[in-house]
Structure formats: structure tokens, C-alpha cells
């Protein structure tokens, strides 16, 4: 029983990083109704910028974090301009395919610039794990969890208390109506993308700093984890992204403990499959038909 509870704690902390990745995904999907497969790889490239700063200048944690976030945002903007801004509205599949092409390009760039594949990344902290009764916690896990909570609260305030948030939500709910109110869709899309990339950059930094190393494969990993967590929660829903991330984290943590690390990803895919079959809209998602019905009541 203690093992099970300990796994749940570990899973929630692991899941909080998945939740951040899923929030970035869902923010972009919510505003554009398009999938950005390059989300993970752009974070990966940001992390390599962080590594570069670390190796070249022996920079401390904060500078590496800043470099990672700035790198992720710049690459995110590059992806937005190429795959989403340049490809007109309504061509959602073209956007998705081109974001896949850019993914390959980003990986190429990294393997050429960093030929050794695996590079060191400065760890978050070297503090020993802490005990609470029968449970123990890694300090870097606690930091990650705290950052995820703070970021989520900040995003909530941004979305529900500011003019910028009103704009993002209006576009996410009905881009046509938002345009009639005089809201500039292209500008909102750009800012939402930058915002999602910044969240992804922070999440990426926390995850990579835990691993203590970075490889070009991190892009694939981040896209998969974020995508699965978003699908579990419901595309376009932020509470869904949080819950989906936590659920994925807990399921993985239990699996690692009871079945072994080698089954970790297999179980994540199985969980996704079960959801896609039985609840394709995710835990919080409205299907498009449901949204239409809500927005146009007959009586």
C-alpha cells in the first residue's frame, strides 16, 4: 500500500511535467484547431541552446534555463511563421504535415550542430532526497511540481483576468465571431504560440535538468508525452491537459514499479488506445458537434 501511494506521489510529480507539455499543445490546438507536431522538437532545440550556453560559458542553472526558454520560443516562432501563418486558414492537414517536415528539419540541424548526440545538461539541484514518514521525495521533483503549479496558476490568471486572455479565449471559441469584434486573429495566434513555446521551454528545462543529459530524441519524446496527455484530457481543454498529464504520470509510475521500466511507454500507448476507443473526446473535451449545439440553441 505504501508503495502504491509512493508511486502516486511520484506519478503526480512526473505527470506535472507532462501536464505542462500538454498545456502548450492544447493552447495551440485551442486557438488554431491545428496540431503542431513540431512542438517537442522546438523544445528540444531550445534545450540544446541551453546546453551550448552551459558548455561554452560554464553558465549557471538560471542562465541555462533562460537560454532554453528563449531558444524554444524563437524556434516556436519559426515554426508558427512557416507551418501556420504561411499556410492559410482551413488547410489544417497541410499545417500538420508541414509541422512534421519541420520536425525532421530541426532534428537534422541538431545532429549536424551537435554530432556527439548525447550532451550533458546541468542538474536542477544536487540535494539529497527528503523523507516524510514512510515516503521520500526527490527535491528536483518537488521543484518541478511547484513550477508546474505556479505556471498553471499564472496561465489561469492570464486567460481569465486579462484583456489578452479574453482575446485568446474568444478566438479559441469562435474565430469568426472574434473577427467581427475586431480581434486580430493572426496576432492572437502568434502570441498564443509564443506563450505555448515559453511554457514548453520551461517544462523542457525542468525535464532535461532531471535527466542530466539531452539527445535529439527528446523532441520525439516530448511530442508524444504532450500529445497523449492532451488526448486523454480532451483537445483544447486546459483542465483536461492538467488531468491528462497527471493521469499519464501516475499510470506510468505504477507501471515502472510493478511491471518494470521497459513497459512504461507501452502502457502509455495502451491507455491512449483505450481512451480513443471509449472516450475519443477525452475527459474534458467537447466534440465539435456538441460545441455547435451549445452555440446555437433552437429554443
Amino acid at each position: 500500500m505504501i508503495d502504491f501511494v509512493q508511486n502516486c506521489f511520484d506519478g503526480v510529480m512526473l505527470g506535472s511535467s507532462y501536464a505542462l507539455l500538454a498545456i502548450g499543445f492544447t493552447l495551440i490546438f485551442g486557438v488554431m484547431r491545428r496540431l503542431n507536431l513540431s512542438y517537442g522538437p522546438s523544445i528540444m532545440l531550445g534545450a540544446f541552446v541551453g546546453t551550448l550556453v552551459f558548455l561554452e560559458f560554464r553558465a549557471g542553472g538560471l542562465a541555462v534555463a533562460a537560454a532554453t526558454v528563449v531558444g524554444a520560443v524563437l524556434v516556436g516562432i519559426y515554426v508558427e511563421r512557416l507551418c501556420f501563418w504561411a499556410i492559410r486558414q482551413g488547410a489544417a492537414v497541410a499545417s500538420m504535415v508541414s509541422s512534421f517536415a519541420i520536425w525532421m528539419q530541426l532534428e537534422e540541424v541538431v545532429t549536424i550542430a551537435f554530432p556527439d548526440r548525447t550532451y550533458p545538461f546541468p542538474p536542477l539541484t544536487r540535494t539529497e532526497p527528503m523523507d516524510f514518514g514512510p515516503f521520500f521525495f526527490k527535491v528536483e521533483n518537488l521543484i518541478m511540481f511547484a513550477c508546474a503549479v505556479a505556471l498553471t496558476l499564472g496561465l489561469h490568471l492570464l486567460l481569465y483576468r486579462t484583456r489578452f486572455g479574453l482575446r485568446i479565449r474568444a478566438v479559441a471559441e469562435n474565430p469568426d465571431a472574434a473577427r467581427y469584434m475586431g480581434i486580430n486573429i493572426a496576432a492572437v495566434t502568434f502570441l498564443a504560440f509564443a506563450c505555448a513555446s515559453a511554457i514548453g521551454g520551461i517544462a523542457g528545462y525542468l525535464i532535461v535538468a532531471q535527466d542530466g543529459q539531452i539527445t535529439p530524441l527528446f523532441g520525439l519524446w516530448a511530442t508524444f508525452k504532450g500529445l497523449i496527455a492532451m488526448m486523454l484530457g480532451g483537445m483544447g481543454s486546459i483542465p483536461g491537459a492538467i488531468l491528462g498529464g497527471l493521469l499519464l504520470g501516475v499510470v506510468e509510475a505504477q507501471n515502472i514499479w510493478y511491471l518494470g521500466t521497459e513497459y512504461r511507454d507501452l502502457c502509455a500507448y495502451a491507455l491512449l488506445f483505450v481512451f480513443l476507443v471509449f472516450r475519443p473526446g477525452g475527459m474534458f473535451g467537447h466534440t465539435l458537434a456538441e460545441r455547435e449545439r451549445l452555440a446555437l440553441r433552437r429554443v
Partner: protein
Amino acid sequence: MLEVRGIVTSYGKIEALRGVDLSVEEGRITCLLGPNGAGKTTLMMTIAGILNPSRGSIGFDGVELVGLTPSRVVRQGIALVPENRLVFPDMNVRENLLAGAFLRLAGERAEVDRDLDRMFDRFPRLRERAEQNAGTLSGGEQQMLAVARALMARPRLLLMDEPSLGLAPLMVEEIFRIIRDLHRDGTSIFLVEQNAHMALQVAHRFFLLEQGRVTFDGTPGELAEDEVIQRAYLGSRANG
């Protein structure tokens, strides 16, 4: 107030508007009738700056609207109540109204809050449901919200695209009562409507749009006397 001259708007190779001329007078209710697919909504979207016409001009109190972005058109003083209402279903009523005043939020927040209060006075049902999500409102309430949301931009000209569409008869009466009230308070209204019977009771001038062209222009009296229109839009009831 609004002068539409020779507007041609196309979707790819198909011309939806093929040279539309009409005018809207200040302080009046002007009604655009026409069958489905005539181009009524296309015209509304062209005026609002959503669609770009390939030819023609739209003058609004001397300002050329063709080529302006939708937000510039809103700033000029034109707001649209879109077809099918298009409320934001997961935002509450208050947020929907604030979104309508979006362009004014940065500079005149206090004014916007006063307008919000005024809107709640005009539509008490919306005040009761201020914190409720728009998706939970009834169809009629959603239409009220769509009208109030457009008014939050403080338009001098209100464009309304089929506000009675899909509403129960009692609710249709209510919407037309609102249109009359708005007119009495000095708002100029350009209304697209398929319900000619109701429109006859409020509008001062009619245009008929058919296959992308204006084929009739006249007063309610002239409209009611026109035999073709009678048969197509008013049915037998107008003969009695």
C-alpha cells in the same frame, strides 16, 4: 450614411455579389430581403471587412471601407450581429459582452463598465444570467446576447444578419421589439431578414437581393404592392 456602389465579391471564380448598389440612411431601419444564396450574408461580411470585394466602393459617412481590416471597420462605428448568433459558448454572459467592446477595453475601461450596466438595464434577462455560460442560455437569450455584444462596440450603424433565424414565434416578436427600441434610441440599423411579414412592421426602406443583384428598392408600401414580391415573400396573407 452607408453608400454601397457596384460591389462585386467572389468566392474563387463564383461571383456572389455582381454589382450591388444600395444605401442606408441615418436613423432608419433598412431591410435587405432575398432568398437563400442571394448573397445577403456575403454583403454583410463585405461591409464588415471580412471579405474583400474585387470591385466597387463602400462609403460610410465619407470614409471608404473597402480595404479596411475588420477591426478598422469596427472602429469606424459599424458592428455586426452575425448570422447564427455566434456567441462564445464557454464564456459567461459578462465576458461575451466585454469581448464585444474589445477594441475599447484598453483605453476606456470605465466607459465600458458603464455600458455593461446599461446593457443589463436594457436586457434584464442578461443581468440575471451574467455569470452563466452563454452555451447554457436559450436561443432567444443567445440572440439578445449577440445583439447586446454588438452594441458594446458603440456602433453608429448596427448590421443584423437574420436575427430571427431559428427562433420560436414569441421570441421573434421579442427580437423585433428590441429592434424597434434600438431605432427609437437613435441607432441606425441595416437588417437582413427572411421574415418579410415582421420586417414590414419595422423597416422604413427595403432592398431585394436576388442572385447577387439588387432587384427592388422601395418603401414598405411599394413592397407590399409589388406583385412578384407578394407571391414570393408575403404569400397570400398580404392579399387579404
